């Protein structure tokens, strides 16, 4: 087990662009840290720098108390599970799992014991004599995890390990990974672009964008108090609604904002911004109610589409005078408006977020949801 320190970590390719622009991050001993972000944001590159598969161009990486910038991958005490599983196709499962120990010239009995113990944990004992091509995707993934466990690493690295599995297997493996982390209590770093994996697995999440970390925090912190519009939009499905607006004036009781369609909304908080400043109102789909009559703080809109997902319904409506489509969700047992129906949408004011013109959350915006 070990903690990791990333100090101003940078990656620049030879004659190429800088892809990681100085990352600072402390990962605690035994923590499950998730790197999440869109494709090309630098999360996998950062993971590969930690693994020792990419050179570090600048900054410092420590695992435990040791600076490991120049330590070879095999001696960093890390094990990695690849997106493609990266099993050795010509070796049996037993040979795959024991390969690292065999190279380390461990006695045969010790290797067998370690392999069988890991196989038992992952329930793949019956597969030990098979070759990878005789395994299903889920079984291959277990073998890849088993190979990592056998090496008893200080840090487990997972590079989008579930993305090649079908939806139901992904859910099952996700639960098993969470259980594995509890059982092993080892530091794990997990890269994914799937926000559900990030939210369900991570003790903390680091949201990457353009080679930088936008925000680090627990899943609920990031969901309820996003530091900026990118994080707010990235986490949550359907994503947060962003409505362009202007701050009109501040009063003792709150702040008035005017949306693009001239709808006024009075928020309970006060914001220190000049009157007339352009802002963005962010509101999550589950924090919008609907009614058939006009009212205070209600946005007039017409329903475009109703999606029935079984447990809930997602309704997409076009607000008057706005290009943006507003999505809101309802439990399936509640009555939803019909397509084309005229409705008024009421955001839950205490759960609204405000972002300035640069996309940063305004101080005071984004409190824990009521």
């Amino acid at each position, binding site marked *: 087990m070990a903690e990791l320190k990333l100090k101003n970590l940078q990656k620049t390719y030879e004659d190429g662009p800088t892809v990681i622009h100085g990352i600072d991050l402390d990962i605690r001993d035994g923590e499950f840290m998730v790197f999440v972000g869109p494709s090309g944001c630098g999360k996998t590159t950062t993971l590969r720098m930690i693994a*020792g598969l990419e050179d570090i161009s600048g900054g410092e990486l420590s695992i435990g108390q040791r600076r490991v910038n120049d330590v070879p*991958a095999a001696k960093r005490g890390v*094990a*990695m599970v690849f997106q493609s599983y990266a*099993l*050795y196709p010509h070796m*049996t499962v037993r040979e795959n799992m024991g390969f*690292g120990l065999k190279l380390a010239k461990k006695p045969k009995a010790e290797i067998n014991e370690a392999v069988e113990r890991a196989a038992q944990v992952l329930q793949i004992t019956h597969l030990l004599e098979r070759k990878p091509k005789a395994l299903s995707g889920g079984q291959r993934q277990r073998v890849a995890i088993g190979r990592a466990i056998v*090496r008893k690493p200080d840090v487990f690295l997972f590079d989008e390990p579930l993305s090649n599995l079908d939806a139901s297997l992904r859910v099952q493996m996700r639960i098993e990974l969470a259980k594995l982390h509890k059982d092993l209590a080892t530091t794990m770093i997990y890269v994914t672009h799937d926000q559900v994996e990030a939210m369900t697995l991570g003790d903390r999440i680091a949201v990457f964008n353009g080679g930088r970390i936008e925000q680090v925090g627990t899943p609920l912190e990031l969901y309820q108090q996003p530091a900026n519009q990118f994080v707010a939009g990235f986490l949550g499905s359907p994503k947060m609604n962003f409505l362009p607006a202007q701050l009109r004036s501040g009063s003792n009781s709150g702040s008035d904002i005017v949306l693009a369609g001239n709808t006024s909304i009075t928020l309970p908080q006060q914001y220190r911004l000049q009157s007339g400043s352009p802002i963005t109102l962010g509101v999550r789909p589950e924090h919008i109610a609907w009614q058939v009559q006009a009212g205070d703080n209600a946005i007039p809109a017409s329903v475009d589409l109703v999606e029935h997902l079984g447990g809930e319904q997602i309704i997409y409506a076009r607000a008057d005078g706005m290009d943006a489509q507003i999505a809101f969700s309802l439990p399936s047992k509640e009555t939803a408006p019909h397509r084309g129906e005229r409705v008024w949408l009421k955001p839950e004011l205490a759960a609204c977020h405000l972002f300035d013109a640069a996309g940063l959350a305004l101080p005071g915006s984004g409190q824990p949801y009521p």
Partner: protein
Amino acid sequence: MAHSRKATLTAYLFLTPAMVLLLAFAFWPVGFGSYIAFTQYNLIDAPVWVGLENFRELFDDELFIGSLKNSALYLIVVPVIQVLAILLAVLVNNNLPGIKFFRAAYYLPVVTTVSVIGIIWNFMYNDDGALNAILRWLHLINEPIGFLTDDRIALFAVMFVTIWRGLGWYMVLYLAGLQAISADVYEAATLDGANAWQKFWRITVPLLLPTILLCSIMSMLAAVKAFEEVQIMTQGGPFQSTYTALYYAYEFGIKSLNFGRALAASLVMSVVCMLLAWLNFRYLQPKNP
């Protein structure tokens, strides 16, 4: 039922052009050639059935036994060419500057006509040729070496040209095999603590086995059937030291019009080729899970 019969008929119709070509240019010549091996035939008179007479004469002929030995010796090129081609492929698989030039350069002999290659190497091997000049310049020899005139080394000199000519072809096949191996597998091996040699020996070689099998069969058959280099560079000489089995068949068939003997020799070589292919499959084919 009717639909199934129609589908079968359609399938056979689509197969017909290929089948006709195969029949005309592969199966018929093989069948006819095999028949001729048991006859006396000179292209002019009708074939006369002689049973195993051609084979008896063949194995009584010291020249054929010698040429069989030479063909067997020629198999030396197989391991040499395979090892060199794998090493070369590993080398050019790196993303070094100018590597495309080297890939093209190594492949160049493959697309060069064998007659041109023969003439060039005749110049190279000449008493006043480049090779002797270099050896003299290095003070390794005083007298020129008769690469193609000394019966002790002529066969090896011809074999060297075969290796030089085929290297690029096998290199490209191995390169394709190497590029089919996922980079992730090597990265996993890096994390498992494998050094460069262990990665090559424990990952690359086993994963290249299907390609090694293919190249091994191809190069063995090519070695056993060695002909063009001999025909262009030595015509079987000096003192019949570079006679290969196929050159023997050519001499008897095309030059002496003894087609019965020539095709008997060819039939023997076909059996040898099949045996070699079987040995390759037996020992090099990767085992199933």
